[in-house]
């Protein structure tokens, strides 16, 4: 249904509703020590061109040899994304000329991808929705170009340290229909790759990059419009910006009755806009053909079973299990499963002390607060899950109060001792014995006439100040609840 509004400056503008059809290609650098076909290091941030060799420089007469770890990580990712695995799989050459590509071809996969027809579940409006994965394949990264311009001189500089780094490419089906869905997909995929230990996903180091394809169709229809590809998306934020821009641009064109051109655009994150990189006529002809320097890669049943077993429980599932089995709130479960390390830490604590609620609270409010402040991960936290569980147990059993527990936690880090030992050594055990507290209470009442008077005059809050004094005199060891109770009893008798 076309509803035409009053023509504006001769342009007939419709107000037809359109919805986007979005597909995403994700590139993730794999967590390996060495490159895909040679032993050059993959370390980030080294001086330019110090991590190259005849193989990754594309010298004639060299032969690539597959990095088994890279292949295993790619396989693990394909399995985590529920793909069917091609056995054997093989590599193809993708031919194009660019200064960051020393061989003038990229070894990639086209005819027989490692994984195909998978899916991932993403949270959309508090429900899980499946997004299809068209394929997952292994390829090599290119180098980096730097564009220099000074004093009228125009040239580019090339660093080939990254050339040949193992790269995983994940291609979705065009099945996302809003920026929010694309956003949920990227976050879910990122967490999945981190969980599976496949990539460090550091966007600021280029470990995780995206390309988007966007077309528009009348809302509710299932046709496909003209597809535009957007490149140079180096963060989740960049993808969101580029999608919003592209959806608006295409919608405006369609409403004005102008066709969307099939083209590839380049996102400029700084200016928040994209520009045409190449048109349909200039489309690349990659002339894929099977890589003659590499043989097909076989995956035995045993190998496949072993890698399948190494795929961890996925975050979405783990979160619902945490809610179900440990009775955690949705929020606590999502915080604790956000990273695999934290989720593992939590479960190890619960295995040592079966009190999930208090363990969860202590990890979130104390342990994570501390590690975040120090900028370390829970894996680098000095206190083992078993020992943290021991501390929470002392707290739960009323043997120490929360203030002392916090203090003990810091001492555990400094001394490397466990909680029961420190509590014993410091005599920090909570005083919850009436006869032991009684003289302290008496002393506080005698030495603080003002709050006592206030209390007796009807200001019940004044008891707080007195409890504070009891805590001070007992060097934090008194059970504050009991102290308050005893103070009130004594004061009430004085009236």
């Amino acid at each position: 249904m076309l509803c035409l509004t009053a023509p504006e400056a001769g342009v007939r503008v419709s107000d037809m509703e359109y919805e986007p059809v979005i597909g995403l290609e994700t590139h993730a650098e794999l967590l390996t020590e060495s490159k895909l076909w040679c032993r050059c290091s993959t370390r980030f941030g080294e001086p330019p061109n110090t991590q190259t060799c005849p193989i990754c420089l594309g010298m004639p007469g060299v032969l690539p040899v597959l990095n088994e770890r890279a292949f295993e990580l790619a396989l693990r990712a394909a399995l985590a994304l529920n793909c069917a695995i091609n056995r054997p799989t093989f590599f193809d050459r993708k031919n194009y000329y660019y200064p960051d590509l020393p061989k003038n071809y990229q070894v990639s996969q086209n005819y027989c991808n490692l994984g195909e027809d998978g899916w991932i579940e993403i949270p959309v409006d508090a429900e899980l929705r499946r997004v299809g994965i068209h394929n997952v394949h292994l390829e090599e990264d290119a180098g980096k170009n730097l564009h220099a311009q000074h004093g009228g001189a125009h040239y580019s500089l090339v660093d080939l340290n990254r050339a040949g780094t193992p790269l995983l490419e994940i291609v979705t089906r065009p099945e996302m229909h809003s920026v929010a869905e694309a956003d949920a997909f990227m976050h879910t995929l990122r967490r999945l790759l981190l969980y599976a230990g496949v990539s460090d996903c550091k966007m600021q180091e280029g470990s995780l990059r995206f390309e988007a394809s966007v077309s528009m169709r009348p809302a509710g229809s299932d046709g496909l419009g003209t597809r535009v590809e957007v490149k140079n998306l180096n963060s989740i934020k960049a993808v969101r910006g580029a999608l919003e821009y592209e959806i608006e641009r295409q919608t405006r064109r369609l409403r004005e009755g102008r066709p969307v051109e099939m083209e590839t655009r380049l996102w400029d994150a700084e200016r928040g806009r994209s520009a045409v990189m190449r048109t349909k006529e200039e489309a690349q002809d990659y002339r894929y053909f099977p890589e003659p320097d590499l043989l097909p890669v076989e995956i035995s049943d045993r190998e496949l079973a072993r890698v399948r077993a190494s795929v961890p429980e996925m975050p979405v599932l783990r979160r619902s299990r945490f809610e179900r089995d440990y009775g955690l709130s949705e929020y606590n479960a999502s915080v604790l499963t956000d990273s695999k390390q934290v989720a593992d830490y939590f479960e190890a604590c619960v295995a040592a002390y079966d009190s999930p609620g208090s363990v969860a609270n202590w990890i979130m409010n104390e342990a994570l607060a501390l590690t975040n402040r120090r900028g370390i991960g829970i894996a680098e936290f000095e206190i083992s899950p078993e020992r943290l569980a021991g501390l929470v147990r002392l707290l739960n059993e009323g043997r120490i109060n929360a203030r002392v527990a916090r203090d003990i936690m810091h001492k555990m880090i400094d001394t490397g001792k466990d909680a029961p030992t420190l509590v014993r050594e410091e005599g920090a055990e909570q005083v919850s014995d009436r006869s032991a507290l009684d003289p302290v209470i008496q002393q506080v009442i005698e030495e603080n006439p003002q709050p006592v008077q206030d209390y007796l005059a009807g200001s019940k809050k004044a008891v707080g100040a007195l409890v504070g004094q009891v805590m001070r005199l007992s060097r934090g060891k008194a059970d504050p609840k009991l102290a308050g109770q005893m103070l009130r009893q004594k004061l009430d008798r004085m009236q």
Partner: protein
Amino acid sequence: MPISPDEVEHVAQLARLELTDQEKRKFAGQLDAILTYMEKLNELDTSGVEPMLHGVEGRQPARPDSAGPSLPRDEALRNAPESQNGFFRVPPIID
């Protein structure tokens, strides 16, 4: 179908080759002869024959993931027509 000089021109462009008109005509003829020869293979009935993945029998060997030494940078840059501050220097790239 005979190969036209235009098609030769297209393929030459993809390979970054500059050909004279005379060369284009010459290679059109050669390519044509090769493709016609290959056409002959289509006469064979290959239904039920597993596609071959590679001309060489066997499967790809793999190596453990451990980093080794790279080339000294001077060595790596030695073949480059131009270099600057440890980078390869190339004509400006227009994206």
